[in-house]
């Protein structure tokens, strides 16, 4: 499948959806908008994007099919989302510590003690600099 045409179709679809969303913007009287409402500029930009997407589709007669995304990328992406899911439960520092261990293991590190020590050192550095130093209040989790 021509990846450029797939990209052009996706861009056009997103632009059309966002163009549609401008019809739900709050309507204001002419006296306030002075002839150039809040929706005018986004529509102008979206129209330009659709025109560029059409050009891209027309000019891309050939386009390579893309290689599949390696499984490790999905796992890494899932790890980011999992991190976000556990922050409200265990707090940010603990979630970061678990993330450092988890992603390090996922990416091939099998020396558990190296993972543990490096993650612990980084956590101490983060706590010292940001929590103690800058006074950043990190989410504590439900067990705090």
């Amino acid at each position, binding site marked *: 499948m021509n990846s450029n045409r797939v990209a052009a179709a996706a861009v056009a679809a997103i632009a059309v959806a966002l163009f549609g969303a401008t019809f739900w913007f709050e309507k204001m009287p002419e006296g306030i908008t002075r002839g150039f409402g809040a929706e005018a500029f*986004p529509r102008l930009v979206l129209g330009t994007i659709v025109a560029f*997407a059409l050009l891209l589709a027309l000019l891309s007669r050939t386009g390579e099919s893309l290689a599949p995304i390696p499984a490790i990328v999905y796992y*890494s992406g899932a790890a980011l989302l999992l991190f976000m899911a556990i922050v409200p439960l265990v707090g940010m520092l603990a979630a970061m510590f678990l993330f450092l261990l988890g992603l390090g293991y996922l990416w091939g590190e099998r020396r558990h003690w190296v993972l543990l020590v490096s993650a612990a050192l980084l956590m101490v550095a983060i706590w010292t600099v940001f929590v103690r130093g800058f006074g950043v209040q990190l989410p504590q989790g439900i067990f705090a």
Partner: protein
Amino acid sequence: MEAFLGGMALLLDPKILLVVFAGTLIGIVVGALPGISGSTTTALLLPFTITMGPVPAIAFLGAIYCAANFGGSITAILVNSPGDPSASATAFDGYPMARRGEAGRALGMSAVASAIGGIFSVLVLIIAAPLLARVAYSFGPPEYFALAVFGLSMVAMTGGDSMLKNLIAGAFGVLLATVGQDLTTGVERYTFGIHSFTDGIEFIPVLIGLFALTELLEQASQLRNRAWVAKLGAVRLPSWDDIRKCSKAIWLSSVLGTFIGILPALGATTAAMIAYVETRRWSKNKAEFGKGAIEGVAGPEAANNAAVGGAMVPTLALGIPGSTTTAIILAGLIVQGVRPGPHLFTEQPLLLYAVFSSMLLANLLYLVLGLGFAKVFARISLIPPQFLWPAVFVLSVIGAYAPNQAMAEVWVAIAFGFIGFFMRRYGFSPAPLVIGLVLGRLVEETLKQSLLIFDLSWGGFLGRPIAMTLFGLTALFLLAPLLVLKLRGRPS
């Protein structure tokens, strides 16, 4: 002159000295880490400059920008994997030199050429930026709108290989800048009921997502690649013979790099590539290129560092970023409440000259650090990805969270990490999106103001010669590749 001396005097402030030193050190270290470019670093560290105040913040980011280009050459020479994209051309001859046991000589030449290129461009910046600002001082909204559109058209050359894809990404950046309350009417646009979007999307989480988190996902797909690493002896100053051999390449590339850097949206990577080609063209030893020619290291290194000062000229004088990293620095200034542009030269000259002098100092510092500690930086560059990238994620989360202490910003960063990954997969570079995001508000505001001046008639622009010239240049620039193809008789 008074402001310049005042700016130089700021370097006597221990706090400024410390941030410039820290910025230079961080710039070299992260520049040397494969995958972490100068733009990723500035995006990642931007949140930590918020509490610094404008002068130290811009001095810190400027020092990182200067030093990251040099840092990138360390891994380009030793590992054949440029730490920063701008060092790609350095690898062509630097790595072959390292393979034949001349890594120290290559790194020495890289440090000297980088420093000469960098200092030359800062001197040009000191002279050219105020002159350019003086020209732009009389600009009204129509001229500014035309200038911003011209700047946007230059994103066609930024990032990926496809002009159209770059323009689409740039336009999406402009659209992203419309999120939040419209300044004229107060109408909320694209907030989707999310309270934190009311004031617009914050720059910092977007930048962290697009650069640091996207790169994390990219690196995940390249985990199996392992490079041959050259052994590094002592780094040494280039010999007199080396200097004589490379002097033409260094000066030619310094001028080229500065000029290319000044052009909006063309940055250090383009400068280095063009300088490599030109250095080879003007060299007496063409056959040596690609096999370890020392001029092939000197030329690109002088050019990519010269582009740094060049790129700061339109950024500071016009408020139009000259590269991806200057777009991030521009965002940093906006976050600090400073809007770059010609008025800055009359309103805050001390700030500008502090930037100039701190950039000069950074160029001298990385020469010393580069020659003295390249061996240490080379070791840092070999941190395994399974330790480096999880740590980058943790810093990204803190960076996105800390400014507003809001998890919503972390979600934005992660969302843009995924968006950036899919953009890159389909050949869309995140760099034009960032430039569009930074320029978006300026484009909309100046367009609205212009139309109000012209009583809502687009024809009003016809009576503004500077604006029309800039529109003409924009059209010429966008159509030039098509015209060239047409003249050559090739299908597009």
